[in-house]
């Protein structure tokens, strides 16, 4: 192993945990925001939606599909000019946030879309009858009524983002996943590999636990 446990933790694991938390949190927040907006657009403009618009729906739906078609690494390199424009560099954890967000947003959008669709149409009709505008219906009815499902799906997506973040190592973002891959797997160091995986497990358990509690609370 060559290095003491303390060294390992200090130099590699600890910064990796910080980086992972940073990337996953920020990417979740941003992709939730964008995914949310996309989901709402899809929900509103679909055929049976509040304001059907085949054109807008088709365009957004296609964009979502196109982005979802890109293998993550390829998405990451394809948008490098954009990443550079946004954060000034294509390398590092901030640079990784851009593809992480872009890759997760359509995924979130699909999850949120299905969440919205589970809201009872009769309740929406009642809101319409009260004179509620589409915006009011979306925020006060659709979103509010689907909150537990949204929370659950957000949890699901967050864990997926954690998985994606492992690949962000390709652009030097660091983080637990890429430590596991690089220092662990590629350097034939099983203790680092499974050590980081254990930390990942703890993280995932934690996220899922919080998500479940949130969902129970919202129910």
């Amino acid at each position: 192993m060559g290095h003491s446990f303390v060294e390992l933790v200090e130099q590699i694991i600890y910064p990796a945990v910080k980086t992972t938390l940073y990337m996953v949190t920020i990417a979740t927040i941003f992709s939730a925001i964008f995914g949310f907006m996309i989901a709402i657009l899809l929900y509103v403009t679909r055929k049976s939606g509040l304001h059907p618009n085949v054109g807008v729906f088709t365009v957004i739906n296609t964009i979502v599909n196109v982005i979802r078609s890109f293998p993550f690494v390829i998405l990451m390199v394809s948008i490098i000019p954009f990443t550079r424009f946004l954060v000034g560099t294509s390398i590092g954890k901030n640079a990784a946030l851009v593809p992480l967000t872009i890759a997760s947003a359509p995924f979130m959008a699909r999850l949120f879309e299905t969440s919205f669709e589970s809201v009872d149409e009769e309740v929406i009709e009642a809101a319409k009858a009260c004179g509620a505008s589409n915006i009011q219906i979306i925020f006060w009815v659709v979103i509010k009524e689907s909150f537990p499902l949204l929370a659950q799906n957000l949890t699901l997506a967050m864990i997926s983002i954690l998985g994606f973040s492992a690949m962000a190592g390709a652009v030097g973002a660091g983080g637990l996943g890429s430590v596991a891959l690089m220092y662990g797997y590629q350097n034939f160091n099983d203790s680092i590999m499974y050590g980081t995986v254990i930390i990942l497990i703890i993280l995932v358990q934690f996220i899922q636990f919080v998500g479940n509690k949130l969902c129970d609370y919202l129910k």
Partner: protein
Amino acid sequence: MIEVSGLEKKYGKLQVLENIDLEIKKGEIFGLVGLSGAGKSTLLRCINGLVPYDGGSLKVQGIEIQKLGKAQLRNFRKNIGMIFQNFSLLERCNVYENVAFPMKVWKKNSVETDEQVRKMVRLVGLEDKIESRPRQLSGGQKQRVAIARAMVTEPEILLCDEATSALDPKTATSILNLLKEINQKMGVTIIIVTHQMEVVEQICDRMALLQAGKIILKGEVKQLFLENSEPLRELLGRKLTFEPGVFIRILIENKSNYRKFFYELSSEMKIAYEICDGGIRNFKDGSAFLGTLKIETKDSDEFMRYLKKKKVLFEVQENGA
């Protein structure tokens, strides 16, 4: 206020509404009755633009609903409260929030909202459930939330789809009184779909009977119940009995002193009668005896003269009770 003419509505091949003509005046309480599946709820939904119609015209306050733009339709709906047959409450909101919903939509200030919401919740008797979610309420409690929600913004028109079906007689009566009150004090126009004839009797001025999408009877409530024509008898499930004799439907109002009517009849005349059906009913303007009497044919003319003298409304029925 509401003018419907030649209204048509189809669900696929099913003709749900056919050539509906109806006029509901401002400040009126109008009853809509009919067999299950006749199209009552659909008509109500057409009136506030929830369901598009396929033909004819439907004007509310002179405006053709179907021609309204989105924003206009929304504004228009703000003047219409609706109580849904299945309540359609927000599952994740408590009673307070459900009732407050239309106030929020109207962007009323919070003081007014709070006051009004609490008032309504009190009026429907749900103060102690104000924090409960619909899931924790009984059927009737849910219905009362729906009622409070529909009335909280004091709309000019109120559409009630079986608004008291899940309520016990006492609560139902208090809700009906509430409706009567807002109708009288604020001139709210109310359309009530119901299967409970007592409800129609108690608060409606006029009523219409829908059968398989067509209006086959409409008019003054008392008059229609007095006439007891075949479609209404059919709805009420009354069977004709074929016996000899003259069957006379009578409506003895308070002014003719319905309580003493039969006693006086006997002391003043020697006409034999049988009370075939009926009893004392509560109409909007007071109680009255409504029922069918059987008179022997020989006495019928004299009896009718007596009724006229007593200012009792009556109709001779072809046959039966």
